[in-house]
């Protein structure tokens, strides 16, 4: 069921991208911002709280608000070149930890692409020079790293995945312990596939992971996901 829903979402999203995009509704986005308010401020006089203030977000380098203490994960992503544009914000808001592993943003994610577009349109109104932001920037539809639904639909071979996994477990412990390197076991297959494709396309920053994922084929990524969802099987 989950897979079917996801594919449906992606179809809509990519259709949107082709047709000059649904521009989000900033007014509706203001309502969604309630979800963010316990940690973030935006607008005149906004200051850093649990999360950084969100004025001037578009085009901003990740992890760059002065005086805010970021997680290691966010600093690493920033060093890898992460900047906030609509596409990245879509991905981050859908599942923060999927874009930036190790982020301290404890937000379960906003699954509805239209709601995200509204929220992003709202945040855009607080950028310093909205008129300098290309129209496409805040409104282009992020499609969660643009993973093609056909790729998400690939059924991986767990046996092949087990062989391929030997390359992963040099660093990631198979029993799921994490100790400086995140755990990758027992992930839902789709999250695993999305994360690896994000490294492969260099949207996610990390040189080792970009290198490892860079040469994995779509089938290999699916096989790894099929294996790691339950390695004890």
């Amino acid at each position, binding site marked *: 069921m989950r897979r079917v829903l996801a594919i449906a979402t992606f179809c809509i999203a990519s259709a949107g991208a082709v047709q000059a995009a649904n521009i989000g509704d900033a007014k509706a986005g203001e309502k969604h911002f309630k979800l963010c308010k316990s940690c973030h401020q935006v607008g005149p006089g906004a200051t850093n709280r649990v999360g950084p203030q969100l004025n001037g977000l578009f085009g901003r380098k990740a992890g760059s608000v002065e005086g805010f203490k970021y997680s290691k994960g966010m600093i690493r992503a920033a060093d890898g070149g992460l900047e906030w544009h609509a596409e990245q914000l879509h991905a981050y808001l859908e599942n923060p930890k999927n874009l930036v592993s190790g982020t301290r943003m404890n937000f379960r994610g906003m699954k509805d692409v239209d709601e995200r577009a509204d929220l992003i349109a709202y945040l855009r109104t607080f950028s310093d020079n909205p008129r300098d932001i290309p129209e496409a920037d805040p409104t282009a539809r992020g499609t969660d790293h643009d993973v093609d639904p056909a790729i998400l639909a690939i059924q991986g071979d767990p046996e092949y995945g087990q062989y391929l996994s030997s390359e992963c*477990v*040099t660093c990631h412990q198979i*029993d799921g312990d994490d100790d400086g*390197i995140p755990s990758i076991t027992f992930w839902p297959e789709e999250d695993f596939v999305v994360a690896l494709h994000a490294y492969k396309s260099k949207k996610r920053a990390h040189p080792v992971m970009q290198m490892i994922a860079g040469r994995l084929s779509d089938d290999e990524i699916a096989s790894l996901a099929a294996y790691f969802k339950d390695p004890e099987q």
Partner: protein
Amino acid sequence: MTLNRRKFLGTGVAVGASMSAPMVMGAAHGKPKVVVIGGGAGGATAARYIAKDSKGEIDVTLVEPTRRYYTCFFSNLYLGGFKQFNDIGHSYGKLASEYGINVVHDWAIGIDRDTNMVTLAGGSKLPYDKLILSPGIDFVDGAVEGWDISAQNKMPHAYKAGSQTELLKAQLEAMPEGGTFAMVAPPNPYRCPPGPYERISMIAHFLKQNNPTAKIIVADPKPKFSKMALFQEGWGNHYDGMIDWIGPDFGGDSVSVNPDAMTVTIDGEENKVDVCNVIPAMKAGKIAEIAGVTDGNWAPVNAADMSSKADPDIHVLGDAAAQGDMPKSGYAANSQAKVCAMAVRGALTGSKVFPAKFSNTCWSLITTNDGIKVGANYEATPEKIASTGGFISKTGESAELRKATYEESEGWYTGITSDMFG
């Protein structure tokens, strides 16, 4: 009294399994037999993967002289005071008890390729269908004028971790105030390309805290070394004026030592030193030469399965192998071991064999929370293991990123040692 001299580890399954070894010796029937010589990153990994994935269909014997294995990787961090000696020591207990591997603590001294038989120093013989050699390195005789292995207590190499590492650390601690530490760095190719330079960083770190007026001299035959710009930046930032690196342009390739007088002569100029770490030129561990699978200093292998070019029943892993583009590192040996394990299982039990994939990353520590790394992917070509691209840390990276890199290296250490020893 073979059993008295062959020393077995573990109880229960392990002892039961190892007791049966002499009885089946030379037998042509029964389960296929794999003997692995060397219990480091290559050998321990290969033994574990074959035992684990064959689920009892293959008899695996691991021959390793030491009961407790000290990893060369992270041994520099012990010298720098970042790790305790015990942190880098590992036992073979789980390989015996959980994976049913016959762990034999002895030296392999002979290999008969006609009868597929390994002879141990203790006198016993181990028959094999497939033999995996992962013996690490030995030193080339006469590589550094004035030094041979009998001088290793005066001028330690500390390039096989264990008592040599402890000795070097003790000598550092005993250095007189304002004394001189010298390193004779090795020529290519050698184990762990960034290793000598991480070691210099760690020793500088130790001396800066404990003996800040001490000096470090490095005589190096190579004009360039691994992560050179990163190390030199780090040395400038953290240990300014302490380290004198002498490359071949200034005679770093013309070195002799006198272990009794504790002198190092570089390009004709004699230096009195207090501690001298001699890292000579290297070659494959001796058993590879005894097996007759070496050509020159190293053992050529086929990239697709790490099999010896001289004998299809023998595979050579890690530092000892001449395989192409991979550096001689623990990570590389571990990566090669998995490809080899899959090929060996496929040959002996008909299990599926997938295309070989190799990768490597080497992390190094410059000072507290200042980690750097270099890595690459590799593929098997008919000629060699060929690099398909990689990455390296950049100079001027943020302190946060360097700290994250160091923490990542600690995660890797836990990961790879679990992958080796279970």
